[in-house]
């Protein structure tokens, strides 16, 4: 999995590319842990080909951390395959989900 980063407004946009599963989730966690806790995030999921519950768990873990440090974490551009996992687990109720990165990085 590839992780790339850019900044829009006060948000760090994390773009993920590839597979987010049990073998790659630790990489994402370590990457996020390297940033200040109070940094608000938008995670762009457009190029995530595959996500399983370990990947979902990593995202939920980040969301919880951001919540306790009063930062914002949003998700953007979820594709159908990724959406399916969020739908079955009802994890979509925990996130603000945008279909556009720049819209997510406003407000």
């Amino acid at each position: 999995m590839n992780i790339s980063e850019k900044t829009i407004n006060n948000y760090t946009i994390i773009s993920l590319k590839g597979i987010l599963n049990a073998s790659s989730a630790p990489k994402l966690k370590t990457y996020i842990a390297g940033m200040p806790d109070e940094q608000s995030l938008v995670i762009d999921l457009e190029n995530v080909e595959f996500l399983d519950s370990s990947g979902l768990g990593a995202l939920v873990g980040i969301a919880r951390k951001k919540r306790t440090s009063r930062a914002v974490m949003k998700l953007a551009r979820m594709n159908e395959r990724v959406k399916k996992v969020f739908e079955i687990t009802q994890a979509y109720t925990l996130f603000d989900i945008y279909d556009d990165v720049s819209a997510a990085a406003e407000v």
Partner: protein
Amino acid sequence: MKTLLVIKKQEYEWLIDLLPGVHPLLVPICNKPFIEFLVDFAILAGSDALRIVSDGVLGSVEHYCENGSRWGVEISYGSMRPADDIYTVIEKNRRFCLEERVIIISGFLFIRYNKKSEYASLFTSLPSGELLSCPHGSISLTGTSTTKTETPGTLPFSLAALDSIGKYYELSMEILRTGLTHYVIPGYSSEEDCYIGRNVIIQKSAEIIKPVIIGNNVQIMTNSIIDSNSVIGNNVIIDRESFISGSIVIGNTYIGEHLEVKNKIAAGNLLIDPESGTSIVMEDPHLLTAMTQSRVAGALLRRVVHALGATFLILLLLLPWLLLRPILGLQGKWKRKREQYFTRLPGKNVTLTNTTIECTGVLSALAKALSLDRFTLLFKVLSGKLALIGNQPLPVNPAIPLLPNTHAVYRPAVFSYAEAEEWPEIGIDTEIVEHYYAVHSDPLKDIAMTQKALFYRTH
């Protein structure tokens, strides 16, 4: 043009309890799933894409509508948080809303429209902003119009919020009576107020009165009557000699023999009264059939149990009755009326003393709470003329000398099953409850039901 549909779970949740097993957005209105009316409207308004956004589970809606290729419109789905306002939802769907005019329908709303009206050009020319609103939602438009026109005084569509089962019923009846030509209704129709689905079997002796909508795979058995203003869903059986009037029978429902369903919504094992929203649960789809009961042993045992129960109650209530009866009699609060009632046997009637206690004062309240008004009737149980619990005795009507045959199982009794179930209304509802228990009772259950009746009558 695109359409964004925003429906919060909180707005449709009430319907889940009433019609379980079907997603509220797929609940049929005149045999057409609710969401399809909105899809049709979006298409009429010139939309090539539709997005359904909700904070609730959309799985089954997605499964049903898929990507919309069936209607030639691109359907997608989005999620939101319960607290999001409409502006946040638009932001969350910015890519979808970008560059085009978007009709935003917010709320669990039915849009009344007429398929013959011209909506596509209307929506391109209308100015942006809120077009219509009602307490439970609104319809608005974003983007700039290509041609400048003023909003016409009346728009050729209106909103109806779906916020109660009563509204749902009213709306269905409204469409059935006056709006069938305004919408695309499933089924074959050679007349404008009669739609019949595929694979429908109607027995020769059955009678069907317009306006009516009948779904697919429906069987209407001998001598049944489908009276006007009825909607029969898919995979429904209306068994022999039943009468359906002003009612909605939701798909996959079985209506047993000799039943009268009037102004109700029947759904699977539920019978819902649209006015009060009360519903009774029926144990299995066959419960309303008139089953033949094993008479001999069962009847004897029942009689013994009922007699024992009555003896017990007589012993228990004798002292209060001896004390309260003379006092209330002197106060003039103890009123008696002798009337003829039907018994189980055709042609044989029984004379019963119908006691009413005027409910003023502590003593009469106490007497009522103890069911002393039924005290003398208990002796009829010992003589076998009445059961302890069963149907409410039917008074003999000189005009109809025979017991109406809707009462396949009729057992006149001191207490009725309907009282035990605290069923609020009289009439057909009571009859259904009584019929159900009459078919499904056994002596042990009868004792429990008698206790329930005694308890509920005190309240």
